[in-house]
């Protein structure tokens, strides 16, 4: 069995992590890889922590990624980046959104949102590229496409042409939202290609 590449997408329920994962999985399938994608539904829309696992290679066995095994983590929210950082393998990289979404204990005033997450992560030697995907999405007129901005930013770390990504977006995203999502993707990709 050859090496399998492991990607995790982590965020908060409602941020569109699953949709972004589906686009990535579609791209990988179209590129001829064996792909496994694992997601858990249920309480996903209720503001909880959401993760999806995408694995690809010549032949993929396990559907999930164990701690210490992820090549890439795409984090849609600041605290979620820290929560799953221990899934990263040695030499792995995180692309993370700077957006901060307070969780229940923070909202009700029992705990504070940690202020020093980027510093703490860099002190632990974790390779994180921080982006303001939400700001870019808002600039495009819809905060909800922050997931695709993130995917665009992440896309340049994988060896696939932009066209292949656009095709996958077209296959997964409904036609009426496609134009906005293509723009979001392009804006994100531009960030990391420079």
């Amino acid at each position, binding site marked *: 069995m050859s090496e399998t590449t492991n990607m995790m997408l982590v965020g908060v329920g409602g941020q569109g992590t699953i949709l972004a994962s589906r686009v990535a999985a579609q791209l990988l*399938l179209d590129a001829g890889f064996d*792909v496994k994608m694992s997601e*858990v539904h249920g*309480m996903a*829309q209720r503001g909880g922590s959401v993760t999806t696992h995408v694995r690809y290679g010549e032949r993929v066995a396990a559907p*999930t990624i164990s701690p210490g095994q992820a090549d890439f983590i795409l984090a849609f929210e600041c605290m979620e980046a820290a929560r799953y950082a221990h899934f990263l393998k040695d030499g792995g990289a995180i692309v993370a959104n700077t957006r901060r979404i307070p969780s229940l204990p923070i909202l009700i*005033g029992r705990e504070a949102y940690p202020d020093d997450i980027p510093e703490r992560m860099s002190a632990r030697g974790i390779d994180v590229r921080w982006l303001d995907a939400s700001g870019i999405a808002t600039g495009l007129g819809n905060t909800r496409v922050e997931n695709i901005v993130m995917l665009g930013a992440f896309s340049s770390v994988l060896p696939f042409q932009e066209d292949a990504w656009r095709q996958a977006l077209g296959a997964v995203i409904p036609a009426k939202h496609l134009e906005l999502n293509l723009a979001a993707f392009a804006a994100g990709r531009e960030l990391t290609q420079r």
Partner: protein
Amino acid sequence: MKTLMSGNEAIARGAWEAGVRFASAYPGTPSTEILENMARYPKVQSRWSVNEKTALESALGASLGGVRTLCAMKHVGLNVAADPLFSSSYTGVSAGLVIVTADDPGCHSSQNEQDNRYYARAAKLPLLEPSDSQEALDFTRRAFALSEEYDTPVLLRVTTRIAHGKSPVAVGIRAEATAPNYERTLAKRVLVPAVARPRHTAVEERLVRLQTYAESSPMNRIEWGSRRLGVITSGVAYQYAREVLGDAASYLKLGMAFPFPEALARNFIAQVEQVIVIEELDPFLEEAVRSLGTVVKRPIEGKSLIPRLGELDSRTVALALAPVLAAASDSTGAATGALALGHDYAAVPDPDDQVTGRPPMFCAGCPHRGVFCELARLPVMVSGDIGCYTLGALPPFSAMDTCIDMGASIAAGLGFQTALDILGPDKPTRTIAVIGDSTFFHSGMTGLLDAVYNDIGLITIILDNRITAMTGHQENPGSGFTLSGSPAREAQLADVARALGIEMVRTVDPFNLSEVREAIEAAMSNPGPSVIIARGPCALLKRLQVKRPAYAVDQETCRKCRACLRAACPALYVEDGNVQIDADVCLGCGVCSQVCQFDSIRPIRAAEDGEM
């Protein structure tokens, strides 16, 4: 050309290709998407049932009536449907009947992690366990033929990672099934004792024939690698074993795990040096392997190493196998598994312990919030149930005492109220059952009749959010639509409660806290059983969404008491010591403004009007 499908999508596809004509289910994670996908195919009557028992009974009826039928439920749903499950084993089928149980190791969205493979053994039914989406499609399709050939329902068991995991699938085409002629078969289907006794004989004979089939079924296969280790496995556990060990082991991969193919297993075991049974949850396969007895002269490991709690993953399996692999390290095999590739599963940095938890919470605009704001103030026992509203057990509400199973809020609540009546403690003073609309229809109605019949002073609040919300918005008898989206007669909760004999029935607006409070007070002063229907649509239900202006905090009059945070709304946050409301998140439900004692939270438009 392969497409990416979840196991649930693949099961629906496989059933459709097998010519299924009827499909029934009650929604439950991780099984829900099976019927949602089934409903997208033509030529199939796909229906939500009121609960899993009626789903399986109607499925059995349809099978006896001559159409191939699929029935799906989550693992605990099969407990509800256990009665017809055992009977269906005796009646047999006419057209193929496949029953899907979707288990949830790790309790991602369940009250327990029971291992439903034991139902196959207990009800004496064949058990199929796919390991990926392609197998989910292939096995489902094959299951219908198996069902008809052996005159038995077939239990297809998936787990969360198979049901929700996506992998490439090559699809086939639909083959229409021929409907058998109907004949009244009293000696088979009227399960009175005189019929049941000989049917038991038939069931035992069927098991023997099924075991013979399992010995050579293409669903059971041996994959040879190094013969130093022989792994016996099934379902998703096979994938973890493969991931970790690769060709450093040989595999007996069981797609049909019951009846257990004993001869095949003996043959496999005889050709390996050591046996490891790798399976999630209970030692179902291991027990079968060990029952082969002294014929097997090989060391066997199983639950001695592999955890029986929670989900497995590659790392868990790798670490569990470490002692065995250390002993086997001198072996020279074509070792190409992850371990052989040098993955160090042990080396993992510690999780960041300063990250705050992120439990699920009521959405902005959720109709449950206001009810739990009120319940949190009362010295009552709250008998909870299964649904989004179980979140009322979490802080800051902490307003729930029990959550047991679907519908238990009412029956367990009347038992608790009986204990209160006997003991008369100062606190709690009263029992209040809270139950969702769909859960009430599922199995709350019978408990309510029990309360009326025995005259127990239980207060029941039906949280009617107009949809089955937690599993992702499935229609139910009260929502006015069927699974296929066509209009349905809308069951009226108040009429049902009155018909069951409840005299005090009130419907309240859950976004109006004083209305909720008054209704509860009235119910508390009434000694008999009563029902309050808190009727307000799920905030995520687009078709009933009401556009209301967002609210804002008037910082001039705000006393910074933060009482509004007790509403635990995702739209409210604290910035520089001030509570703010995110206007993009706020749906204008107004619950926080009613919690505020200083009238400092007002709709944005009204606030602007005031300034003018």
